[in-house]
């Protein structure tokens, strides 16, 4: 599966990773190489085989719907690159 530059640019946008134009070509080659190798999977007969969602044969546990943690705003904001007035601060998103 050969990826072209346009596809790589689209994936980068979806993944929110900025790429410069001169990075697209080498990355397309690298990703195509990996996908070519992954193509071996297509030769495996998986008709009627369910996809595995978890190796743990268990249903998700339930618990009482009560507060178990919280009330630590300063701890939560403590690692924020920028915080203001008790909130995470980001560039303006509403004009």
């Amino acid at each position, binding site marked *: 599966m050969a*990826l072209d530059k346009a*596809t*790589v640019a689209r*994936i*980068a*946008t*979806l*993944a*929110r*990773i*900025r*790429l410069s134009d001169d990075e697209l070509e080498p*990355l397309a080659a*690298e*990703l195509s*190489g*990996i*996908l070519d*190798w*992954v*193509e*071996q*999977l*297509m*030769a*495996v007969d*998986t008709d009627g*085989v*369910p*996809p*595995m*969602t*978890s*190796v*743990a044969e*268990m249903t*998700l*546990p339930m*618990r009482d719907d009560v507060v178990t943690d919280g009330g*630590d705003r300063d*701890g*939560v904001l*403590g*690692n*924020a*690159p*920028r915080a203001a007035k008790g909130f*995470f601060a*980001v*560039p*303006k*998103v509403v004009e």
Partner: protein
Amino acid sequence: MSGLTRLTIAEARDGLRSRKFSARELTGAHNEAVVRSGPLNAFITATPERALEMAAAADARLARGDGLPLDGIPLAIKDLFCTKGVLTTAASHILDGFTPPYESTVTEKLWAAGAVMLGKTNLDEFAMGSSTTTSHYGPTENPWRRAGDNRPLVPGGSSGGSAAAVAARAAMGATGTDTGGSIRQPASFCGIVGLKPTYGRCSRWGVVAFASSLDHPGPMTRTVRDAAIMLRAMAGHDPKDSTSAPVPVPDFEAALTGDIRGLRVGIPRDHAGAGDLSSGNAALWQSGIDWLKDAGAEPVEISLPTTHVALPAYYVIAPAEASSNLARYDGVKFGLRVDGESLDDMYEKTRAAGFGPEVRRRIMIGTYVLSAGYYDAYYLKAQRVRTLIARDFAAAFERCDCILTPTAPTAPFAIGEKSDDPVAMYLNDIFTVSSDLAGLPAISVPAGLSEGLPAGLQIIGRGFDEETVLRVAGVLESAAAFTHLPSFVAGE
């Protein structure tokens, strides 16, 4: 007192209880060894003062006669485990300065058992790699060198800092995580024991997530007994991890009876031609079969017909999960931020600057295989193959009680080798990745030297049967009698 860094955890436990030496002396010797291990770059952060405080608390308990299971044992922690108040990096630029306000469950359990934290060890960025060369903090060197060749070798990865620290006698044991082989392959490369427990045995809470359905925390030690001791302290149900198994934790040490008479050991012959298995590692595999046979076990030929595509399946599933897990690094909540004109501009610039090339590659692959039009062809296909791999093991375990394979296909390679071909690097995990996909317990035990460098053998067991895995590993360990020391030893 000299020689303290040469002790096993079991020996140190006895010495501390009989007051032959104090926890402070033991920790002091290891703090010095951590400093001397500097040339290996095994540690990202050393915490000598905290170690001495923890050791003093252990001494107080030991003096009162109410010592805990791991009281005073100095350990290194892979820098993927969140440690409260101590820098946690995942070896990534994007987590610059991140100081967790909480402690991972596994490390919390270790401290509750009395263990002492020496520091945080180096790894491949976000645990993505097999060589500990993709770290933002530079590569870790293997303490072993090839005879007559001074080129630094990789310690394996991703838990390469932990493996190098334990092998070089800078720590008595360490935590690792294994997603495709990241505990066992570095254990093999550095001549130590690495145990990946069953999925769900050790909580993932507070471990920086790579691929959640595949991430397994586990111990790395110099002996099988030490792995059993550490695992007992690390394991157990954790309500904070919804995939943590609500099963009791056995006394794993009690499983080390040395008696494997009548046990059926599966030998997957389809592995013999796999990858580029070196002649040295193939010969060690045969030795392993002979040792277990001599101890009264019965080798049984088995087939794992789908495992030849385990790696390609892994390189769809793991990047898919990683692309989702790593969406949280956006420059808002923690770590690096690169300012931008808009929110999207900030996200894109931050993530471009913060992720290294291998992490970026995997996020891109994962984003692609999950994107509209490719989800069925790649992601669901790989998950179906994963079901077949689990079925292969289930069928094999009807005929055998455990499985013996090499851990890695080759001896450690030089730093820089294989780094220009991602797929060549991925092939390191050819023997380890299947048991991650199936969630089964597996251990690597040093079996001997191949090309003058350590090589491990792997025992894979049934789910939640770490006891059989450890028992067989103990027999392999005794038969192999691996007493070689690496060329570089940091401990006295």
